């Protein structure tokens, strides 16, 4: 079916300019009026995998809360007040290892159109002091910039809030969509990177490594602060050689001294999510390796430390240790 063949629209979104903007992007889509996004998003027994082949859009108005404390499994990069926010639920990519498939009952994308209320919530939180905020965890805002321009909206918002620091996490090569903006000191563009073999096998619909590196190089040349996110590290056959060569490839295209910082994360996931997803995904070996459940109910590889230390040693040949997190 064509992309976003159906758009479910909460009755109350009509007044929001963002809703009109999104609808104008898909004039051929069938529009279905609904009362509340959860009437569609939370239906029982939905098939996440089948929906991924034909995802729909849902336009909704978010209610409180708008900000959530940063999860323990995520790196805070030394920031005290670490929060995340989700102006969009779900991602257009289809990565085998993605936690979203165990978190949400549906693969449909929800766009909350009341973005100004998200900004107001961030301003309220800023009254307590500096804020580190991540609006692109449960989605990929840069990848969706052509559908809803939230990456640029967040950049513009952060530009006038000196005490705010935001990270825009992405796998997209769509840097061109924000290239017209002047770099903002409060903004970190964070690219998730995997070796090409891993990306081809496990990161369905995402751009190639080379395409992402090209986007990163352009962002760095324009003066943006860029973070490299080497996560999740996956246990693949001959992983030492693959990940070693991967770093050589990354830094053959990107000048290490220009990189803001980097983080390393071996594959890990909440126990319940892991159980749910591993039952669903019988088409991938991502969940097929010996795992242990560590403190806090987080499942990871038995030899997580070996993998992490190996990668850290190799990465520290390119980046100073104080720039490496995780």
């Amino acid at each position, binding site marked *: 079916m064509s992309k976003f063949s*159906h758009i479910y629209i909460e009755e109350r979104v009509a007044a929001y300019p963002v809703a009109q903007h999104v609808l104008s992007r898909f004039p051929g889509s069938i529009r279905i009026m609904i*009362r509340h996004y959860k009437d569609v998003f939370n239906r029982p*027994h939905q098939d996440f995998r*089948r929906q991924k082949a*034909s995802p729909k859009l849902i336009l909704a108005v978010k209610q409180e809360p708008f900000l959530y404390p940063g999860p323990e499994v995520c790196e805070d990069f030394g920031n005290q007040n670490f929060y995340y926010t989700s102006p969009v639920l779900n991602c257009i990519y289809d990565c085998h290892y993605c936690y979203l498939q165990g978190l949400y009952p549906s693969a449909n994308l929800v766009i909350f159109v009341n973005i100004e209320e998200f900004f107001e919530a961030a301003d309220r939180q800023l009254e307590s002091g500096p804020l580190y905020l991540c609006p692109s965890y449960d989605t990929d805002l840069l990848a969706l910039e052509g559908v809803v321009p939230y990456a640029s909206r967040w950049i513009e918002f952060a530009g006038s809030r000196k005490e705010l620091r935001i990270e825009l996490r992405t796998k997209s090569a769509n840097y061109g969509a924000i290239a017209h903006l002047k770099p903002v000191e409060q903004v970190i563009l964070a690219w998730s990177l995997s070796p090409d073999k891993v990306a081809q096998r496990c990161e369905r619909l995402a751009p190639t490594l080379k395409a992402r590196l090209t986007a990163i190089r352009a962002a760095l040349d324009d003066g943006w602060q860029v973070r490299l996110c080497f996560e999740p590290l996956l246990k693949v056959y001959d992983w030492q050689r693959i990940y070693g060569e991967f770093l050589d490839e990354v830094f053959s295209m990107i000048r290490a001294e220009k990189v803001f910082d980097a983080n390393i994360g071996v594959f890990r996931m909440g126990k319940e999510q892991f159980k749910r997803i591993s039952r669903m995904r019988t088409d991938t*070996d991502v969940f*097929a*390796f010996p795992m242990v459940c560590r403190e806090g109910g987080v499942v990871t590889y038995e030899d997580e430390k070996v993998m992490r230390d190996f990668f850290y040693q190799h990465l520290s040949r390119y980046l100073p240790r104080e720039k490496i997190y995780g």
Partner: protein
Amino acid sequence: MIYIVTALPCEASPFIERYGLKRDDCRHFSLYRGQDMSLIVSGVGKMASAIATTYMLARNLKPGQAGGEEDLAIINIGVCGALHRRYLIGAPLLIHKVVDHETGKQYFPDILIEHPFEEGSVETHNHVIRRQDVLSGRVELQADLVDMEASGFFQAASRFLAPHQIYVIKVVGDYLDVADFDRQRIARCISRTLDAVDGFITQIEGLCTTEGDVLTSYERRQLEDVKQSLRLTVTQGHQLMDMARRYKLRTGRSLPDLSEFIQIEVRIKAEGKKAFERIRRLLLYE
């Protein structure tokens, strides 16, 4: 496997003829069966439709067998009324929203495949709705079409099936202005949609086909023998199947030979546990 639920015999007869369905000896409903299709005539009304739908789906479940519903789809097909004459008589519509008039609740099938139909919404009422009821304002409609079964059907079906397995196709029969229904006219309305519905059924069958298990039937039998021989608990049994599937996904190879574990005679719990640990090492670390 496709299940069809119709309210009236005249809605069912074109399908019975087209697919060569044979009458089942069910005492409670008019039930018809073919190779990959069953059809039930529920009677008029959302309660009747819900009961017939539940009966069809519950009969499919085998005691002690998990799942089994993944390859199913169920379709409610029947005539409906339309207020607006932009819908032509005889036009079939695939429903993307079902509204229950009495409760106000709304239900949404998952439409994940291409199809030849116009789409619309239907509102299910407990009573026959006349055109005059709507035009006078006595009854307020929230949907494009009006029927008496869809919401009962959908509620019942969604207890058993995923939303991509449940479909409602309504054929416009009148403009809420018919005093008595004409059986032959209804049957003709349905008949004219059969080619389109048939193509759509083929699409649905493709969508609902489940991927095969990564384990072969020989491997599953061998694992069952291991479970019996080692007297594994239910949990250990699930763990064994899980480890076996992971082994195959990880290595891309067939399972190693487990026949030594079938020949073991387990007398005490500790022996079974020891053997299970050996299997675990074999399947997880190779």
